[in-house]
């Protein structure tokens, strides 16, 4: 496991930024860390990259405690910080070349890799342009290029698509997904759509990881089964399906539409048709329903708040 965190906490004075986080990231995974601003994402990344010590708990990254990384380990870690930290007066290729040199790449390999990453991120044509003359999206891509240039096996990206237009953001995520074939990526984001593109999603809320799984599994876990949308031929009350074996939740979404959560949708379908008939209606269709991931995340956060309310909420 490239990343293993056990009961890790980090405080800044009285503020608990990260609270008892335990998680592992498997080799070749693309883990999305999602949460609102101030939820502890950057603090977590800084602890994993060795720039911040945890207050308690144990972190192992590539088998070592991050603050004790030897040079050989640092050489295979990539980091794209949240803020623009490149040199505005250097050109795009000079910036990438500088970072490649910091990671000890010799010029022949550096030359080839600078070209490769600039082409990969669509910056080759502006390679001679100074960083300060690039657009916001180009700068962000330039930073990602700097993070990738030394071919790290483990890459930390702190909100890499913040301020990037949606089309470009989609391209960058395609690239992240392609990269996971050879490396492990941990990406923080505030975008629900982006989180859904990850192999695994960790939901951070008030410094705690309140859910960690694949996007589909998270969906399943929050609804407790498969969600199906039933469309009847005549208006039927959702309550008509209460008591149908295998149905755990129901919600009316229209006069002829009902959302049902079934433990096994296939097995429940005949019983749903039967219940509709009992209400003098036929069933026009039964379709699997894919709730939006933002609904899923909202539900996860609500559940976390119910299980452990904030001080204000408790008051």
């Amino acid at each position, binding site marked *: 496991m490239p990343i293993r965190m056990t009961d890790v906490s980090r405080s800044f004075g009285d503020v608990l930024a990260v609270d008892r986080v335990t998680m592992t990231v498997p080799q070749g995974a693309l883990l999305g860390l999602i949460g609102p601003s101030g939820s502890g994402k950057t603090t977590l990344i800084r602890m994993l990259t*060795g720039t911040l010590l945890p207050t308690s708990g144990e972190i192992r990254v590539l088998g070592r405690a991050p603050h004790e990384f030897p040079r050989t380990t*640092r050489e295979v870690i990539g980091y794209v910080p949240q803020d*623009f930290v490149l040199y505005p007066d250097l050109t795009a290729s000079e910036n990438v070349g500088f970072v490649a040199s*910091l990671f000890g790449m010799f010029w022949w390999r550096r030359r080839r890799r600078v070209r490769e990453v600039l082409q990969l991120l669509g910056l080759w044509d502006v390679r001679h342009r100074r960083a300060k003359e690039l657009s916001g999206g180009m700068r962000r891509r330039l930073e990602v290029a700097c993070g990738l240039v030394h071919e790290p096996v483990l890459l930390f990206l702190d909100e890499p698509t913040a301020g990037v237009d949606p089309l470009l953001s989609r391209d960058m995520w395609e690239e992240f997904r392609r990269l996971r074939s050879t490396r492990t990526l941990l990406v923080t984001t505030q975008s629900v759509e982006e989180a859904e593109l990850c192999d695994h999603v960790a939901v951070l809320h008030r410094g705690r990881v309140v859910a960690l799984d694949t996007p589909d599994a998270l969906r399943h876990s929050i609804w407790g089964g498969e969600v199906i949308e039933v469309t009847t031929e005549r208006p039927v009350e959702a309550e008509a399906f209460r008591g149908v074996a295998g149905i755990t939740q129901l919600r009316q979404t229209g006069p002829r539409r009902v959302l049902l959560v079934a433990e096994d949708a296939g097995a429940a379908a005949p019983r749903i048709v039967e219940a509709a008939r009992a209400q003098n209606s036929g069933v026009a269709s039964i379709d699997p329903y894919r709730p939006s991931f933002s609904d899923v995340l909202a539900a996860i956060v609500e559940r976390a708040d119910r299980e452990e309310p904030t001080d204000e909420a408790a008051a």
Partner: protein
Amino acid sequence: MISLAKSLTRITAIIRKELRELARRPGAIVSLMVGPLLVVALFGAGFSGQRRAIDTIVVVPADSGLPFEMGNYRDVGGEALRVKDVTADAAGAQESLRRGEARVLVTLPKDLRARFERGEQATLLIEWNEMDPVQAGIAQATAVAFTQELNRQLLRSAASSLGIESVSVGSPGVRIPAEVIASPLRLETRNNAAARPSFMSFFAPAVLALVLQHLAITLTALSMIRERTSGAMDLFRVSPVHAVELLVGKYLAYGLLTLVIAASLVALLGGALGVPFVGERLGFARIILLLTFASLGLGLLISLVADSERQAVQLAMLVLLAAMFFSGFVLPIDEFREPVRSLAFAMPVTYGVALFQDAMLRGGGGTPQWYEPALLAIGAVLFLLAAGRLRATMRATA
């Protein structure tokens, strides 16, 4: 009217914003106000306004018949000269003058009595090794005063030994002119400095030293502050780069830049302003590198205590102000009291001014031998301090 009111609203908003920003950076205000006050206070407390007595060696030729006891000459120099040695070794005394151990050398005539008795003036040779036109003028005036006093004492001595009524002090039949009786000694002065620069030529190397120190300090301080405030330090902390590698890279880059600037300035000073350069170029390059090394360290020190570019610039300006007052650029360091005089030697530019003037105008060898090692030591201490601090910064934050 509404437009004017809106304009006033905007202006007052800007005023409030600026004042709030300033109030929230007390460090900047303190360095802005207290710094210059401190420099002026140090100047007031440390500057005596009195010239220190000039260290003088008196050479008495062995067969001159003149006394060797220091007490005979101590009063002659008055407050202006301090006779530190009386010797017959003329060559040794010349070497002391060359090395700067004494600033004035008085060589008494070996045939004073014989010449006097022949009715002739004997020659009193007073030498100094001073490039500074101001100091050379002071030495000249002091030499005249010294000769007058010596003549007076000789007359007094003659009067007491021969009797005031007697006028025949020479060989029989020799008439002693009134001029010889009034001044048995004729002053001859000599400035042994390799160059007699004009005021502009003399101060040009000092300005060069000041410029190089200020350049090195400002460039390094700003560069390091930018690394810190831009977040690049986070990248360094994650990457395999070591604090010493970072420092060496910066030192070499700015060292090279300063060397190029210094070479260009020296060429400009010589070509456009006619400032002479009589020294050895390699030795001069070594002094530039030493001054740059120490100044870069001072810049790093500033970057470690400043929290913003603005504060770094303020501190760099304060160092420049202190350098102007205390480095010997305008006022001789000798005219400061302790401990301000010693504090002056904590600044790289103090050595830079002396070494540059010596190397460019005199050809070297005219400053104390410990100046270059001292500059190297200051640079090394500052480098170690900066490396230690940077290593701590790059370690994981607890």
